[in-house]
């Protein structure tokens, strides 16, 4: 359908974000409605991890037995995202593609190092890491988000300072050590932002806790200038990113120990 439509045609899933943008004056020439494509609304375990269809709603995510079992922090956090009406209608794919810094699922996908599957206009399938999200909007239809195996991943979410800063942290695990990590930041920049935690070698949980203050300080200092507006100044946001990151690294280290 997209190939037959004009270049300005937009995909619409839950539509809440799109309708609100139109109400605020955004001109939309054509909409390709995705409702009813049930194949894109399923959650399934695969060899590569947990595959979430792009039309999975937030409510499906929070109530899914598979998500609750494998990613309990994700299911728990999602009970507080937006409100029940938005969670019943809004989709995780739409949440990502809106690229709104205040939305949450892009952060989860980035922190988890999820893979995003796209279907291009010409029918070509393409997979990109969620951490490279900024350019994804032109890759076609987002069809699925695959979270890596929970055995090799630990996640934490912190929405306590929303709408000034939200944050998600993902740590990759191997043989009881943390081999890599990612920080995803929402609300503080023009779009969701992901950065890699600078580990020079695998760290045991205790080592991660010991280095958490330095890691958080250096990483926060290395970020671009955060937004300064009514919800917080750039200085405040940078400082809160450091504090929340340190707190969540310690919490994750305790969980893994």
């Amino acid at each position, binding site marked *: 359908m997209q190939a037959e439509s004009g270049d300005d045609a937009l995909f619409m899933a839950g*539509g809440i974000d799109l*309708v609100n943008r139109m*109400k605020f004056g955004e001109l939309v020439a054509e*909409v390709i*409605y995705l*409702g009813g494509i049930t194949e894109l609304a399923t959650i399934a375990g695969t060899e590569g991890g947990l595959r979430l269809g792009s039309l999975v709603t937030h409510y499906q995510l929070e109530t899914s037995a598979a998500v609750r079992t494998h990613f309990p922090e994700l299911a728990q956090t999602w009970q507080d995202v937006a*409100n*029940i*009406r*938005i969670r019943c209608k809004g989709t995780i794919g739409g949440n990502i593609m809106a690229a709104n810094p205040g939305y949450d699922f892009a952060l989860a996908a980035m922190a988890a190092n999820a893979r995003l599957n796209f279907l291009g206009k010409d029918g070509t399938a393409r997979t990109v890491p969620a951490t490279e999200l900024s350019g994804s909007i032109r890759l076609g239809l987002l069809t699925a988000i695959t979270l890596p195996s929970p055995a090799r991943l630990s996640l934490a979410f912190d929405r306590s300072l929303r709408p000034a800063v939200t944050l998600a942290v993902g740590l990759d695990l191997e043989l009881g050590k943390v081999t890599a990590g990612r920080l995803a930041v929402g609300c503080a920049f023009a779009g969701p932002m992901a950065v890699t935690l600078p580990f020079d070698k695998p760290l045991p949980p205790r080592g991660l806790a010991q280095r958490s203050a330095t890691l958080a300080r250096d990483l926060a200092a290395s970020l671009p200038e955060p937004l300064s507006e009514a919800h917080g100044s750039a200085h405040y946001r940078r400082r809160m990113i450091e504090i929340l990151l340190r707190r969540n690294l310690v919490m994750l280290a305790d969980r893994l120990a």
Partner: protein
Amino acid sequence: MTSQIDITVTVNRRTCRLNVPVNRILADLLREDLLLTGCKIGCDQAVCGACTVLVDGLPVTACTTFAFEVDGTAVTTIEGLSEGGALHPIQRAFLEHGGFQCGFCTPGMILSVKALLKQHGDPDENTIRQWLGANICRCTGYQMIIEAVRAAAGAMAE
């Protein structure tokens, strides 16, 4: 580009075949075309919950839903809750517990409660607050609403 679209939707147990503009918002369809003015428009941004209706049993903000999205679904508004002139137990509980004052938020509040009690037959206060947290009432202070929900849950369990 298509400017009108045919939809078939069951509204309050009545099947409606409609030809609507593609950009018709569900709240306007209900209020202006079907004269179901119990669907209130408050914030018009999916935040306040006044426009809540049920689509296939799930709570939805009619103010941010296109009419074409409800094609093939069953929509319930507050006008469709009572049957045979008898109030629904949730409506009766709100009445008996003073769960409303001006009444503007009440249709959305009651429909959210209906969806809540379908998922959680005996919800604790935390669950009630979580589900109704985004149904904004400027009159009651919420406590009587929570008491009404508990009473309704009890009445519906009997």
